[in-house]
């Protein structure tokens, strides 16, 4: 069961989205989300939908996988929509009588519920497009580049990036280890499924103790291995695969600004 874990569920590919400079991709994703919150008109959202659909098409990631990413957020979406629907005061469209009370649904509530749901949906799709097209290593590279200007403020950008890389690197290893330990203890008749909460918590001991022991052992081995290769951290380190801005990235910025322009016209200039 733990073998199926894929962090950020990166789907390898060779689309322009995959090849973009990671740091720029992160910035553009943030900008994408910011733009989203400036939109109010249905027409703007329609345009935004077209742009997002085009992005998905370019990325080559199947729609099925993107929809799968939305599924875990479904309850939050429904909850947000319901809260907005019922809790917004305004011009009552219809009311549901309920004994002594009545629940009023306002026009503003309907609009707000719809906008919030659509915004959240786009937000999830945008963020998952980033993680679907960027490998964890590229992602840390991007974060390192973005934090670099904060270096004079004593933000340890290289160290943060290195820690993230190591953490991401060890997730599958530890997941495999956990899987193996669970199997081994199951084979020895351990029972993780029955009993009350206290019993079940106690049943985790045979898993957690070996897992911690092995995590510490691995950390120790890794530290020794890094030291043996003269790792000393800091800014003098170079990378084997250096990422650079290319023509493609300039084009991406241009396309993004163009889309922003179209959205601005639709949202503010047109009087529909």
């Amino acid at each position, binding site marked *: 069961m733990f073998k*199926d874990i894929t962090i950020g569920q990166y789907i390898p590919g060779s689309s322009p989205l995959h090849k973009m400079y990671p740091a720029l991709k992160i910035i553009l994703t943030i900008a994408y989300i910011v733009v989203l919150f400036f939109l109010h008109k249905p027409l703007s959202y329609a345009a935004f939908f077209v742009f997002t659909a085009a992005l998905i098409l370019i990325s080559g990631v199947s729609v099925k996988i993107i929809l799968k990413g939305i599924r875990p957020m479904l309850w939050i979406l429904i909850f947000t929509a319901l809260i907005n629907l019922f809790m917004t005061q305004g011009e009552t469209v219809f009311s549901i009588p309920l004994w002594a009370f009545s629940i009023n649904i306002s026009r503003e509530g309907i609009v707000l519920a719809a906008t919030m749901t659509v915004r959240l949906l786009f937000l999830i799709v945008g963020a998952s497009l980033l993680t679907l097209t960027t490998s964890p290593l590229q992602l840390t590279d991007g974060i390192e580049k973005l934090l670099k200007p904060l270096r004079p403020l004593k933000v340890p950008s290289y160290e943060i990036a290195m820690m993230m890389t190591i953490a991401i690197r060890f997730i599958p290893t530890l997941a495999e280890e956990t899987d193996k*330990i669970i*199997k081994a203890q199951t*084979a020895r*008749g351990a*029972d993780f499924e029955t009993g009350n909460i206290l019993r079940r918590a106690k049943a985790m001991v045979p898993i957690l103790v070996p897992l911690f022991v092995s995590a510490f052992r691995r950390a120790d081995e890794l530290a020794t291995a890094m030291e043996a290769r003269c790792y000393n951290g800091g800014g003098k380190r170079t990378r084997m695969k250096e990422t650079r801005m290319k023509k493609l990235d300039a084009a991406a910025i241009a396309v993004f600004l163009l889309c922003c322009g179209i959205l601005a016209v639709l949202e503010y200039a047109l009087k529909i």
Partner: protein
Amino acid sequence: MIKTENVSYVYQPSTPFESAALKGASLEIEDGSLTAVIGHTGSGKSTLIQLMCALLKPTSGRILIDGEDITAKGADLRAVHRKVGLVFQYPEHQLFEDTVYKDIAFGPKNMGLDEKEIDERVRESARVVGLKEKHLDRSPFDLSGGQKRRAAIAGVLAMNPKVLILDEPTAGLDPKGRDDILGIIKTLHKMRSDMIIIFVSHSMEDVAKTAENVIVMNDGGVEMHCSVAEAFTHAERLQEIGLNVPQITLLTDRLRSAGIKLPEHIYTVDYAAKAIAGLVKGGDGDV
């Protein structure tokens, strides 16, 4: 008896990472046999043994233990776990209790045995694997590497399984530790005449020294299932699929082709030593 019928297993089906580890393996393993499973990395050895312990469910096919289908819907998996003991690779990584005694007792305790029975089983299995009384009260983390592994094996033995499966029991041990573990396997085979013992190994030397039968896995299928002696007569085929015959067999084969009259199919050092000694005593001028 363990019987697998056309068993297949696919990891992460219907994802981009889908991979078939086992493609239709059919086997029959007799009661009281001592069988080694060998094969190249990724040949499906580990998957096969996890299926036999009902830790994985086959994608297709059936597995019968003593005629009982352990892959059927609603099969009692806990009963299977009791019957089939599995010692994982590096089993010492699963030790967790504060004393060796408690760790060995974990399995029997889960089976719901009474104190007296547990105590007997713990001491008996510790004795079989060569752990002394003084070790039982120590923390398992204070033992040496070889002792830890033996303690972990004792933990599975204490459940008194009908089938004992060991996944690379000698991995990462020094020659002395290897011989100790292989010795334990042989002793068990002699002691419990109806116990099925299966062990996975990478080392042809270990297989030659210890096992009676061998299952050769290749690319998710069963390539051979025969006696060890017979398997080594197919030396060429073994080398084709990335496995080696023991060094001593290679050596005696070369000696033979150089004109020295040694018998065919020598695969243990002991046997080779005897054959060469016989030749020297016989003194027919070849050696």
